[in-house]
C-alpha cells in the first residue's frame, strides 16, 4: 500500500534537480524586477496595439509579393549553397571515410561552433561584412545550414555499412566514384529528406532575417512596426503565415514523392 502511494516519488529520480529549478525561477523572477503594475499596464498597451491592428491591411501588394519572392529566393540559394558545402565537408567529417581522424574532428568541431551561433547573429555579422540586402541573408542561411547538415550528413554516412564502401573500392573505383556510386547512392533518400527538412527551417529564417536588414519580407514587417502601422504589420504577418504554410505543403509533397521511390 505505502509503496503504491509513494510510487510517484520514485519517478522523480533527481529531486535535487527540482529544487535547483525552483531556486533559479525565484532568483530570476526577483532579479528581473517584474512588478504587477507593469504586468497590468501591458494589457492596456496590448489593447492599444490590437485596436490598431484590425482590420489588417496590405498597402502595396506588389512590393509585398516581391518581398515574398525575395525571401524564398534567399532560402533556396542559401539552402543549395549550404547543401553543396555540407556534402563536401561531411565526406571528410565522417569517421569511416575521412583519411585522418584529426580532419574529421576539426570539421565536426567547426560545425558545432557554427551551429551554436543563431542565424540572426550570422545575418548581423554578414551585414557588417557585405552590407544590407539579400546577400547577407543567403550567407547567414548557408552557414547556419552547414552547422546542422554537416552533422546529420556525416552521421548518415557513419551509419552506413563499411563493407559497401569496401565493395565499390574493390572494383578499382576512384575515390570520387566510391563517394558518388557507393556512399551517396546508398543514402540518397536520407540525404534528401534532411535537406528538405532544412529548407523548411530556412524558409522560416529567411522570413525573419529581413528584420535585421537582410532582405525579404521581414524588412516589410520591420518597416510597418517602426511607423506604428500595426494594421500593416498584421497584414504582413498573415502573408508570412501563408508563405510558410504553402512551403510546408510543398515540402511534404516532395517527401511523399521520395517515399514512393
Amino acid at each position, binding site marked *: 500500500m505505502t509503496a503504491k502511494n509513494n510510487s510517484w516519488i520514485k519517478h522523480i529520480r533527481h529531486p535535487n534537480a527540482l529544487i535547483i529549478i525552483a531556486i533559479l525561477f525565484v532568483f530570476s523572477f526577483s532579479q528581473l524586477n517584474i512588478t504587477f503594475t507593469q504586468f497590468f499596464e501591458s494589457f492596456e498597451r496590448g489593447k492599444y496595439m490590437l485596436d490598431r491592428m484590425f482590420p489588417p491591411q496590405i498597402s502595396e501588394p506588389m512590393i509585398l509579393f516581391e518581398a515574398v519572392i525575395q525571401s524564398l529566393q534567399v532560402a533556396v540559394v542559401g539552402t543549395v549553397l549550404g547543401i553543396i558545402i555540407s556534402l563536401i565537408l561531411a565526406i571528410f567529417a565522417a569517421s569511416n571515410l575521412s583519411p585522418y581522424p584529426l580532419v574529421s574532428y576539426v570539421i565536426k568541431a567547426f560545425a558545432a561552433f557554427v551551429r551554436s551561433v543563431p542565424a540572426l547573429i550570422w545575418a548581423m555579422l554578414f551585414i557588417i561584412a557585405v552590407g544590407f540586402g539579400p546577400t547577407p541573408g543567403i550567407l547567414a542561411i548557408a552557414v547556419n545550414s552547414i552547422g546542422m547538415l554537416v552533422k546529420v550528413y556525416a552521421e548518415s554516412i557513419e551509419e552506413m*555499412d563499411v*563493407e*559497401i564502401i*569496401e*565493395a*565499390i*573500392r*574493390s*572494383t*578499382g*573505383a*576512384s575515390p*570520387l*566514384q566510391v*563517394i*558518388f*556510386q*557507393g556512399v551517396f*547512392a*546508398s543514402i*540518397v*533518400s536520407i540525404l534528401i529528406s534532411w535537406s528538405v527538412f532544412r529548407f523548411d527551417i530556412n524558409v522560416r529564417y529567411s522570413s525573419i532575417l529581413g528584420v535585421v536588414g537582410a532582405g525579404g519580407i521581414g524588412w516589410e514587417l520591420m518597416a510597418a512596426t517602426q511607423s506604428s502601422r500595426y494594421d500593416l504589420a498584421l497584414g504582413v504577418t498573415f502573408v508570412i503565415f501563408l508563405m510558410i504554410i504553402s512551403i510546408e505543403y510543398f515540402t511534404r509533397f516532395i517527401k511523399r514523392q521520395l517515399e514512393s*521511390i
Partner: protein
Amino acid sequence: MENESILVLKNIQKTYKDGTAALKKINLSITKGQVVSIIGPSGSGKSTLIRCINRLVEPTSGAIEFEGKEIMKLRGKSLRKVRSKIGMVFQSHNLIKRAHTIQNVLHGRLGYTGSIKGSLGMFEKRDVEVALSILNRVGIEEFAYKRADELSGGQQQRVGIARAICQKPSIIMADEPIASLDPSASRTVMEYLRNICKEDGITAIINLHQVEFAKEFSDRIVAVKSGEIVFDGTPDELMEAKIFQIYN
C-alpha cells in the same frame, strides 16, 4: 604453363593497431585457373588474408606478386588498376540496395570508366550489353531493372558474382559467399561461381567455413588457423582427422 602462379604471397604479416596478430608469415602461391578454398574457423584470419591481397587491408609486412608484378608498393591509379583485375564477392552481398540490379553489375566497370563519368553512372553502351549478358549467365536477367533489395538472398549473391565478373578479372575472391544462404541457394551460388570461373579461366579464392562445400567445389584447400596455414593440399588429402584438428 600449367603450373604458372598468378598470385604469390611472401611472408605476409598483419598486426592490427591493438596488437592482434591476424596473419603470421603467410606464404602462398596460387596457380592460374584453380579454384582454391580457404577454410578455417571464424577469426582465423581468412577475411584479413583475402583483403590483404587487393590491399583493402594494408599488410604490415611481406610481398605480394600479382601476375608477375610486385603490388605492395602501388598507390593511387596503379593500385586501382590491379583492383579492377581482382573481383570480390562478399558474404553480405554489399550491393547498393536501392539501385537497379544492372547498375550494381555495372559497378564492376568503374575501374575502366573515367572518374567523372563513372561517378555519374554514365557507362558505355557496350558495358551495359556486357552487364546484361552476365546477368543472363547467372540466370537473373529478368531482374535487371528491379531494385537489388527486391531480390532474394541467393539472387543478390548472384548479382554480387555478376559484378565481380563484369570486371573481367583474372582472380575472383569470395569472402564467405554462402554463409548467410540456405543449403539449396548455397549450392546454386557455388555452382555459378565455379562454373563461370572454369569457363572463363578465372582463378578463384574462396573463403568458406563449410568444409563439405570446400571439398566438393575446389581443386585445392588451404586451411588457416590463428593466422597460420595449417593445411595445404587437395580435397582428397584433407582427412577428417585433419579437419577436426583445424576446427579445434
